[in-house]
């Protein structure tokens, strides 16, 4: 059963020209696209905030206009009133749904637990960090236990460790029997959240990836170490042709990613200290780049080459 059905949607004064998509109930759908591709406009329209166009969107058997109380929306652009405490904000927002006091308390408790903001309850909004405000606004979107949760750029502007916590919170929401739609530019590794990804470009969904395709998106992993002994180096580059290494850096491309466990074993065997293991690319970002025209791509992402960054990667290091 589809939670959301959009057919040939065009939104005036936005890049959306011909969007058709079906979002299954209780799934997590990712809308990815470059800046200005119309992700936020699409989310707003699904939320029923575009007057005429929103009536074309079906939520189950009814138009979204008739079901907005079942929708929660979170956007980095939403700034709550600063003169309220978190508890006041959530209580007053919940009261608008006509909840009884018992139900209201239950909804409040659950929303703050899901967003991990129990300790913020009595703080004023003006005292909160950006990350805290973002979680509070997510709790606000969740207060009515929505059937459809729309999240626009959940990690934008957050530090890396905050991004991870936000991803964990959303991951946890996936098990709560609600349909989640997330719009992102793909600059943060959110792909683990999605059941389906729709790539938005040129005013339409140009391609959709299912869970299997998302898992097999090409990845590049970089391992930073102290000096790698020559013997270890030779063992590592012999594993796969997708491995590029220098004295202190190993880059795993394509099929080379499958050899990560073996590389780690070799490094540990030779007592090499591993400083960092990190993704060198974001698969979603690569998808976004592929969706852009060459001219726009060159403006936003000047040409770079990974192997040129690490010098003559295939040359063995010299022993000191």
């Amino acid at each position, binding site marked *: 059963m589809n939670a959301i059905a959009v057919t040939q949607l065009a939104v*005036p*004064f*936005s890049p959306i020209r011909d969007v058709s998509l079906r979002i299954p109930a209780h799934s997590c759908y990712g809308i990815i696209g470059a800046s200005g591709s119309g992700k*936020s*406009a699409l989310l*707003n*329209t699904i*939320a*029923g*905030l*575009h*007057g*005429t166009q929103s009536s074309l969107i079906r939520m189950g058997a009814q138009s979204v206009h*008739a*079901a*907005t*109380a*079942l*929708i*929660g*929306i979170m*956007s980095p*652009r*939403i*700034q*709550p*009133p600063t*003169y*309220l405490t978190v508890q006041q904000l959530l209580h*007053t*927002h*919940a*009261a*608008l*749904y*006509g*909840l009884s006091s*018992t*139900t209201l308390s*239950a*909804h409040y*408790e*659950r929303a703050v637990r899901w967003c991990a903001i129990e300790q913020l309850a009595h703080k004023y909004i003006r005292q909160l960090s950006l990350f805290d405000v973002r979680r509070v606004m997510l709790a*606000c*979107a969740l207060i*009515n*236990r929505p*059937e459809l949760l729309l999240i*626009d750029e959940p990690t934008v502007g957050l530090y890396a460790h905050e991004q991870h916590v936000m991803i964990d919170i959303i991951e946890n929401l996936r098990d709560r029997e609600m349909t989640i739609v997330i719009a992102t530019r793909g600059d943060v590794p959110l792909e683990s959240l999605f059941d389906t990804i729709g790539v938005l470009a040129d005013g339409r969904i140009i391609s959709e990836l299912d869970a299997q395709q998302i898992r097999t998106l090409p990845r590049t992993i970089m391992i930073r170490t102290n000096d790698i002994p020559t013997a270890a180096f030779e063992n590592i580059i012999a594993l796969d042709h997708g491995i590029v290494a220098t004295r202190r850096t190993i880059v795993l491309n394509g099929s080379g990613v499958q050899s990560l466990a073996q590389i780690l074993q070799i490094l540990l065997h030779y007592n090499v200290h591993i400083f960092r293991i990190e993704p060198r690319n974001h698969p979603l970002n690569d998808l976004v780049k592929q969706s852009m025209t060459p001219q726009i791509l060159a403006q936003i992402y000047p040409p770079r080459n990974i192997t040129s960054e690490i010098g003559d990667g295939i040359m063995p290091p010299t022993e000191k």
Partner: protein
Amino acid sequence: MQRLRALMAATPSDAPPTIPTSMWRLVQRILTEYMQSQRIFIEWGSAIAVATILIRNTANTHTMMATWSLYTILVALYTTSVLADVAEQPFQMQRLLAIQSRRAYISAYLIAANIIVISSYIIVVIVSFLTAPLARPTLELFAASLPSILVLISVVTTLMLMLTPLVANTQQRIGVLLLITIPLSWNIIGPAIQRFVGTEYTSYIATFTTIWGVLLWPSLHLYTITITPQIDRMMLVVIVFHLILLAVMIRQIIHWFNKKSLAIA
């Protein structure tokens, strides 16, 4: 029966909160937050200031009532513009989703604006009575002016809301402004047009002058009867005219607001 069992089995936290809230709950929220944000002190403070500075030494009852009416019009313009600005903030869109009705949403803000302006009017009247010893309108005079002042407040707040970007786009706002300004400035525009087009169109210009005159008469008279109220047929006609005008404006506001894009941006 199965449905009843299912309802009874549902825990409070699982119960779907799909009951659309009433407009009045939103009005209550708007007013509470208007006070919590301390914006209300601008209206109430100005009411006290007007009463103690401008009205205290007034010896003429009609001057006092004219000041009340003028002050109320200014406060209505200010309060409505502030509330329209608040209503357009992205955070309020979450509330719009919650109450599930654009008509209820915009009506709630209109009602809240009226309540705030009326409360300011009450304060300016009470403080005037307390601080102005020289002029004091009789209770009958005050009661007679009350219906017209309430209608005046409603008309001004509705008109102001109609002119805000929250409701109307630029073309619609220019259209409304032209409807107001052309009749008001017709005594300048009319002769200028006549000079431009020549004497052969005099009859057309005169027709427009009559139309604007008829349209403007009740509007200008409403302000007059808030100052010198007389309960008679003319007052009734003026008030009924404005109630009809009010209904038309509210209907137009709802119509425009229903079509408007309220995207969070």
